[in-house]
Structure formats: structure tokens, C-alpha cells
């Protein structure tokens, strides 16, 4: 079990590294765009499409699973903290299964749409015919990764519930806060 968690974390860390580089790229592209527009009056015409079509989608979908590992997805945990251990494990299991259902659905429908766009070679209308399938494919990729993580969590939480003690997972206990 721990081996599976570790393998998943390796993949998540790799795609998160890509997303981190891309978020720095967004910062640099937009800064250059503004500078070029004001200094040389020649903005980067491709910046808008590149960022909104690919980069933002990549930053979000590639980080989805790793953010869940780090406990970044906030919940209202005030009640849950007061639950007895068995109820807390059951609540965690329900959360895992609900999340699993949501992300499987999004991955499935998103996958169909990406495949469709790939087969018909859809492109964005504009000066540069950006293909749409790479950004559409990020949806099943990112949602698939977080669904895998939720499946592992569900297994770990189900075992914890059955055995009456917490099975080790790699989920951080501390929560990240961003307000």
C-alpha cells in the first residue's frame, strides 16, 4: 500500500514540477507582453491564447492531485475534529468516495471530448491555429491522477475503519492555508 502511495507521489511531484515551471512562465510572458506593448508598441499576439488555452489548464490540472496530498483543498473541519475515531474514518471514506465519483465522471466526459477533438483535429480560430486536444487532454490526465489518489485513500480509510486504527498514508496532517 505504502509502495503505491510512494509511486503515485513520484508521478505527482513530476507533473507538479512542470506546473511550477509553467506558472513562472505565465508571470514572465505577461510581464514581457505588457513591457513590449508599452515600450515598443508591439504586444505578444500569441500570449493570450497560449496562456488561457494551455498554461492555466496545465497549472490547475497537473497540480490537482499533489494539492490534495498536501491537504490544500480546504474543508470545514470543525465538526469532523470532534467526531469519535470511527466516525471520523467513516467521514473520510465518504469524502474519498464522493471525490472519486466526481473526478471519474469529469475524467470520463473530458476524455471523450478530448478524443473527439483529437480525431477531428480541432483548432482554435485565430491567427495561430492552436490544436485544442492538448488542453482537453489535461482534464482526464489531472482528474485521473487525483481519482487514483482518492482510490488509494478510500482503500486506506476502509482498512482503517475495519481494523479500528489508522493505516499509514502519506497524507499530510497539517493543512495549508491561503486566505
Amino acid at each position, binding site marked *: 500500500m505504502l509502495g503505491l502511495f510512494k509511486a503515485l507521489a513520484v508521478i505527482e511531484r513530476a507533473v*507538479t514540477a512542470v506546473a511550477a515551471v509553467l506558472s513562472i512562465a*505565465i508571470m514572465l510572458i505577461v510581464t514581457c507582453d505588457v513591457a513590449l506593448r508599452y515600450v515598443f508598441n508591439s504586444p505578444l499576439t500569441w500570449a493570450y491564447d497560449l496562456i488561457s488555452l494551455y498554461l*492555466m489548464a496545465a497549472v490547475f490540472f497537473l497540480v490537482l492531485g499533489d494539492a490534495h496530498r498536501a491537504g490544500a*483543498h480546504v474543508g470545514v473541519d470543525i465538526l469532523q475534529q470532534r467526531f469519535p475515531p470511527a466516525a471520523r474514518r467513516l467521514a*473520510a471514506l465518504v469524502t474519498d468516495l464522493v*471525490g472519486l465519483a466526481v473526478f471519474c465522471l*469529469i475524467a470520463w466526459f*473530458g476524455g471523450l471530448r478530448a478524443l473527439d477533438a483529437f480525431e477531428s483535429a480541432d483548432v482554435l480560430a485565430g491567427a495561430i491555429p492552436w490544436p485544442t486536444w492538448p488542453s482537453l487532454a489535461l482534464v482526464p490526465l489531472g482528474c485521473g491522477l487525483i481519482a487514483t489518489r482518492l482510490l488509494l485513500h478510500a482503500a486506506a480509510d476502509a482498512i482503517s475503519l475495519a481494523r479500528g486504527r489508522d493505516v499509514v498514508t502519506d497524507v499530510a496532517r497539517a493543512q495549508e492555508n491561503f486566505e
Partner: protein
Amino acid sequence: MILATGLLVLFALLAIGTPVGFAMAASGALGLYLTGGLRMLSGILQTAPLSTVSAYELITIPMFLLMAELVLLSGIADDLFRATAAWVGRVRGGLGMATALAGAGFGAICGSSTASAATLSATSLPAMLKQGYEPRMAAGVVAISGTLAMLIPPSVALVIFGMLAEVNIGMLLIGGIIPGVVITLTIMATVWFLAWRDPSRAPSGPAVPLREKIALLRVVGPMILLFFMVTGVIYSGVSTPTEASALGAFGAAVLAWRSGRLTPKSLVPSVVRAAHGSCMIAMILIGAHVFGYFFALTHFTQDLIAWVGTLQVSRWVVIALILVGYVILGSFMDQIAILVLTVPVVVPLIKSLGFDPLWFGVIKIVTAEVGMITPPIGLNCFVVARYSNRPVAEVFHGTFPHFVAHLLAIALMVAWPEIITWLPSRMQPN
């Protein structure tokens, strides 16, 4: 009936601690399925997630979060408190006031209030305790001063409100400036009042030679530059808030690089944290969109507005009830969650009553500030308690006078909406 099922599932999931974005997406999906079957559900799940995150305006959030991380990395906040302490430390309650000023200054270059509270806990709290301040009072002023970052632009919270309520984000951010000043003065006045009642709570600091005071102003230069790179360009219409956020992140990166603390080892965790934060917020927005489609189908908002319209009460009673509701919600719920859950209902309602949504957005964020320091979960108090190793109850006690003062400040802004709306109305059209 379907509406009740959807809401029940949503609140049940929230109660057991399911992440807000997951809970909204799940209950929204269920509601859509019950209303329009698989066809409707698949149509929305196919488009909503990708179209939400590929909105160009959304880059404001990762960029503001990245800016906050880089500002933290640059260490500029530590110097900021030293500078304000040197200038106002001599007066009664001076270090407390210096904390409020440093909080405002930090808020002007950083949009995250927990980051601000953490930084102030590390710098101003030890300084006040060393000076012999009553620990409760010192911790209280640190927790409340941290919340200024939510209100003074750049502000992640105002951007989220703007995206949900479809209010001009640039005008909203500019609308936070004067209230930010008002709240800073409110905190300073509260500190002065507490120190006047019992001078032993807040001994004044040693005199600092003028030469040193001027030397400490060095730190203010880069801070003001960064403030103008973001808020200045938005106000003057030079660029959109979206572009300004990337400029701000870039400026903060330059500051961090100049401070010599920007190394690959320090940069990676900062960028990853910013990415996690943006991912969390985007997930909540996706959940809110899926739930929003379902919610719109139920006509709940229109029915509520029609019902409120038939009530024989003044609109001021309605707004007062809404604000009280926000303070109560804020005491046990995450602020972003409160925004996504309430804005789709409350903003159309207040618009129908003739209130300005821009004014309301800023007022909402001030009530959110209050929520950040209200027990049982006021986040900033926990941040301060963790960083300073003091009991949480003590911090909550210390914030109580500020809680009262904030309610007065909110009343002031309800009575004179111009405090919020005047500056945005002077903006250059973009």
C-alpha cells in the same frame, strides 16, 4: 424538492469535512442529474471544469499568490516593522500601532492574510513582548493587523468576489484602499485606547536617533514601488488587474533576488505552495460553477428576491441581517467557502434592493476580516498562536476589543458608502 436534496447533500458533505470544491461539484452534479438526467450532467461536466480554469482573468489568483510567497521570501516584511517601530514606537502603545502600520504596508504588497499574520507574529510580536507588552494585547493586535492584507490591494479575496459576482475587479481592488486606511486607523485607535486605559499594558519604546530612522526608510522605497506596480497601474488604467498581478509577481521576484534569498532551494517550495493555493481556489470555483448551473435551474434566487420584495421591512434591516449572518458564518467557516456559497444568492438580492455590488464586496471582505479573528475557528488567531507559542484563548481575548472596533467601522461604511465607492469612481476607464 430536488433543490432540498441538493442542498442537504451539500451541507451534509460540508459537515463531514469534504473539501468545499468537491462537495459543491458532487451535490451540483447530483442535482443536475435529478433535474435533467445524464444528458444535462454530461453536457456541463464536459465543459465547466476546463472553461472555468481557462478564463484569462483567473491568472490573477496564481499571480497574487506567487507574489505573496515571493514577498515573504524577500524578507521585506521584517524590515517594514523595524521601520514603523522606529517612527511611532515612542508614543503610547507605539509598537502596537507600528504593528498595524506594518500590517497595512505588508497588505499593500501581499494579498494573503495568513501570510501576513505569520510574518507579523515572527517580527512584531517578539518585539512587543520584549518591550513588556501584555501578551494578550500584543497577540490581539498582531492577529487583527494580519487581516488588513485581505482588504488592501492586492487582495485574493476581492478578486474571488469579483469573479463570482461579476463586478469589475480593478474597481473592487481600488475600492479596498480607503477602507484599508480607515481600518488601519481603527486598529491604531483601539490600541491607543487600550494603552490609555492601562498604560502598563503597553510601555513605550526607546527613542531612536533621527539618522537611524531615516536609514530605516530605505525599506519603504521598494515597497512603494511594488505597490505602484500593481495598484498604481490598475488605478491609472495602464493595465488590467490581470496583467498587474503578473507584474506584481515579477516585481516581488526581483525584490527577492536582490535580497539574496532567492535560491533554487527556496524558490521551489514557494512556487509549489502558490500552485497548491491556486489549485484549491480554482477547484472551489469549478465546484461553484457546477453547483451554480443546478442552482440556477431551481429559480431559488429569483424566488427569494420576490419573497424579500413582499416583506414590509426596510432594506437596511435586510443588509444588517446579511452582515450579521456573515460575521456568524465567518466564525466557523472558511472565507472562500463563504464567498462561493453565498455570493450567487446574496449579490442578486442586494442589487434588487438597490445596493451597489462593489460597495457590498468591500463590506463583505471587512466582515470576513472579523471572521478571521472570531472563535471558534478564526484562522488568524490560530496562526498567531502557532507562531508565537501562546494559547489560542489568549489571542482570542486579545482580539475582542478589535472585534468591537471593527463592527463600528462596518457601521461607518454602511452609513457613508462613499468611503468605499469614491476612489473607484475616480478611476481612468480601462
